[in-house]
């Protein structure tokens, strides 16, 4: 089948044109000033109070979101596996289906639920609990992130769990392991690739989001995504925006490298 190697070239050309060159361009702008001369100011700008605060906040919120997603999603995947629904598309569709309703609109709907005079407030009033709007707080943003990215955690976990050899689990319990031991010693380690891709697919978008914080943060919360987006859209400073993007990319790559150390198979592509 060696003849077929050339089939990989068209996409290689595509990737060079639309992935590599764009990244090099980000690098170019990141290391130049408005006047076009070389500078590292755009990189070191991350240490300015406004930027580092936003980056730390993004890291904190996205980490929290990833953990919450993992805790929520794992039981879902386990339950679905035990229900023996099979690899069937139906379950997957149930989790993909919300994505067919526009992402911005779904997030906006939370505003209807959570805001002052929203549905939750009126519900709380009717049963006599007081509720203060969480819009504009970190909680609202985490909620929006978890809501949007939870399916990305459930699907890889579900995939990896259903593919797991049931005999291995049976063997563990036959050999005297209790349910808890079977889980920690067998199921959990075997599901690591799923966890890795789930974590990747949740952590990266939540670290870089600017839309969720825009919609649910009452524009009081500035994440690193907001800062970068606004450097381009408002401050018209693509140099600073590119510099900060480079820093953000370094953070993503570093965390990916960290996560993928746990992915011993190195495939990590259980989606």
């Amino acid at each position, binding site marked *: 089948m*060696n003849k*077929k190697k050339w089939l990989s070239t068209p996409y290689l050309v595509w990737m060079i044109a639309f992935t590599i060159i764009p990244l090099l361009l980000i690098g170019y702008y990141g290391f130049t000033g408005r006047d076009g001369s070389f500078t590292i100011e755009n990189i070191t700008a991350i240490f300015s109070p406004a930027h580092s605060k936003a980056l730390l906040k993004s890291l904190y919120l996205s980490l929290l979101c990833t953990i919450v997603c993992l805790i929520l999603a794992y*039981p879902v995947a386990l339950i679905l596996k035990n229900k023996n629904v099979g690899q069937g598309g139906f379950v997957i569709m149930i989790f993909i289906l919300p994505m067919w*309703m526009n992402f911005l609109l779904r997030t906006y709907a939370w505003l209807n639920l959570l805001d002052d005079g929203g549905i939750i407030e009126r519900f709380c009033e009717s049963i006599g609990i007081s509720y203060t709007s969480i819009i504009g707080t970190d909680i609202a943003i985490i909620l929006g992130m978890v809501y949007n990215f939870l399916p990305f955690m459930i699907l890889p976990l579900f995939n990896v769990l259903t593919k797991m050899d049931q005999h291995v689990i049976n063997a563990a319990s036959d050999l005297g392991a209790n349910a808890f031991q079977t889980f920690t010693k067998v199921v959990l380690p075997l599901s690591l690739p799923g966890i890795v891709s789930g974590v990747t697919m949740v952590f990266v978008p939540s670290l870089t989001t600017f839309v969720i914080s825009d919609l649910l943060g009452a524009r009081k919360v500035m994440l690193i995504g907001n800062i*970068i987006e606004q450097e381009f859209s408002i401050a018209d400073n693509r140099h600073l925006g590119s510099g900060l993007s480079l820093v953000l*990319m370094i953070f993503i790559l570093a965390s990916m490298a960290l996560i993928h150390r746990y992915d011993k198979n190195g495939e990590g*592509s259980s989606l």
Partner: protein
Amino acid sequence: MKLKRFFSQIYLTLIFIFLYAPIAVLIVFSFNSEKGSRFNHFSLRWYQELFQSEMILDALWNTLFIAVTSAFFATIIGLISCLGISALKGKPKAVYMSLNNIPMLNSELVTGLSLMLVFAAFGLTAGYPTILIAHITFNIPYVILSIMPRLLQTNKSTYEAAIDLGASPMYAFYKILLPELMPGIFSGFLLAFTMSLDDFIITYFTRGAGINTLSTLIYSEVRKGIKPTINALSTIMFVSVLLLLFFVNRPKKDSTKQ
């Protein structure tokens, strides 16, 4: 054991409520007679306005057009590259696969921004072509990740036997490999279509004058207070997908009965 079953049922239900509550809210409010977060009384007003709003219908058309076209091209390019990748070995393969992973790891934000810069630098006027290129770029990795595992599972000897027996590579591919890859191709296409349909960030950075998808239209409307016409549209889209899903899954049940 029963108790465990009971709790897992409750847990699943709660997760579903969490995922579908906002959607329920959107659907309910599409039947609201007034704009705003208070439900007045039932009305089909927004459904009527929907079909008169050229802006929304244009955005819908753009969204579907971009999603179908980009998913279509991404699937074809992805399929071809998968065949090529399977012939690669060792280091080149590893490099190729990590290049392929870049758009997924890179975050939509950086992908969108970098493409915007490239289009501007090379004087490409933002428009349909730039949006399509951007969407295809971030869709291909998903297609490849869907098809690759299938391709690795296929039995190569059948294909080779067909060639030995005198089938042309094209014919053997069409008759033997393609049917086996079909589920992967299909899920790749569906994934690409969905990602493109739901994308906001990349479109936001690469769109041109007057071209709105539903996402960018909603983003600009959010600031002025969304009119429930968009809710109405989303409701229609959601219900049609639901019906399609139902329709596709029904024959399965029948066959298990038999």
